[in-house]
């Protein structure tokens, strides 16, 4: 099972109203650059539980999900 883990996110807000997450920062200080956002849609976080706008992002070659729910961002962390 995965665990819902809230993270700090650095994002860009475009003139058109779009939000592009650029970097994810973990509690322990590690930070990951987001290379690309591949998809954005509303979706449940099936593994960890939760709901929100789901960003499919590529981080150092790996595809993963980043969720935004009412202003808070979270990832599904492996337990």
């Amino acid at each position, binding site marked *: *099972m995965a665990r819902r883990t809230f993270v700090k996110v650095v994002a860009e807000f475009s003139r058109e109203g779009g939000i592009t997450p650029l970097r994810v920062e973990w509690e322990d200080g590690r930070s990951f650059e987001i290379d690309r956002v591949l998809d954005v*849609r*509303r979706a449940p976080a*099936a*593994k960890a*539980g*939760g*709901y929100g706008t789901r960003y499919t992002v590529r981080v150092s070659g790996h595809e993963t999900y980043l969720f935004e729910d009412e202003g808070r961002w979270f990832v599904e962390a492996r337990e």
Partner: protein
Amino acid sequence: MRTVLHSDLNNFYASVECVYEPKLRAVPMAVCGDPEARHGIVLAKNELAKAAGVKTGEAIWQARQKCPKLRTLPPDFKKYLRFARMMREIYADYTDFIEPFGLDEAWLDVSGCHRSGEEIAGELRRRAKEELGLTLSVGVSFNKVFAKLGSDMKKPDATTVISLDNYREKVWPLPVEELLYVGPATKRKLQLRGIRTIGDLANCDVGILRGALGKNGEMLWNFARGNDCSPVLSEGEAAMVKSVGNSTTTPRDLVNDRDVYLVLLVLSESVAERLREQSLRGGVLSVSVRDCELNTRSFQRKLRRPTALGEEIAAHARELFRERWYWERPIRSLGICMSGLESLADGVQLSIFPDADERRYDIERAVDDIRRRFGHGAISRASLLADRRINEINPREDHVIHPVGWRG
């Protein structure tokens, strides 16, 4: 020929909880209200609890007898409303004719879509699963009554088509109480006349039904034969919520008007706060009173204009109580419920004295704000200081939302 869908979100409250906590899918679980603190009821349950025989509406202790390991969760109405709204947005991609039936059900008229009802039903189910993590049962038919029957036939996550060609085989063998508006009393009257299935009803002489049930008899006869031409209404969001209410069992029995007024004030304020939170106003007030021997009475009144002001609700509640209650016994619990709701999002009738009204709303909104930021006890009415114990009731945090199945 119309194409009408009836869409039903399976085990709605319980399913939403599972979206947030997927582990709950693996254990029997029920969302339970706790209206009287001393005995809660099951509002919704997941598939495992259903398999163990847990029924919506029964008391938690009854459910626990059948299913000792039942996990119970308190309801989180805000979450459910959010998901109901998102589902509605999905419906709106297909049609404007959306008639909600509580939070978890809706009729859709998709006649103008140039696609088959079954195809749309499949797409709705796929999208609900992908976008919301919920499953739907959808009935597809040529009228509302059969569409609703269809959505009840196969659960969860299924489509049932009832067409002109197959309704005799699919609908007629069903027991008559499956039909919309056939409650226990009607069922009894029909059974006395040997009518047990919907087919019996359809093939019965309409004169007999008219004699037994009056105009309703003829209506049911038509329903059973597929002659239901009631339109799918294009209804606003307010129709999703039927009522907002609150009740409480007081720490001690209430013995005089003054006691009651205090409790009514607390309840009115919390109902009003919730109405405002959802941008709703209520036009019909009911006050329910349960005495120490557990007899319940309830009184109702239509207000001159809909309101979401605690003070106004409390004033009406006091009046209603004074007119109708004669103090035969002390009171154990009190409830207030507002129905006849309209949503500000759908437009409202304005008052001819808008300024005075607006000021009162401003005051109550300011109180909402303070409570949201600093807690419920941060501000309260001086009159409530008269009895600290009554003031300790915090109905805002332990209210209950009745499922639609309770419409009776």
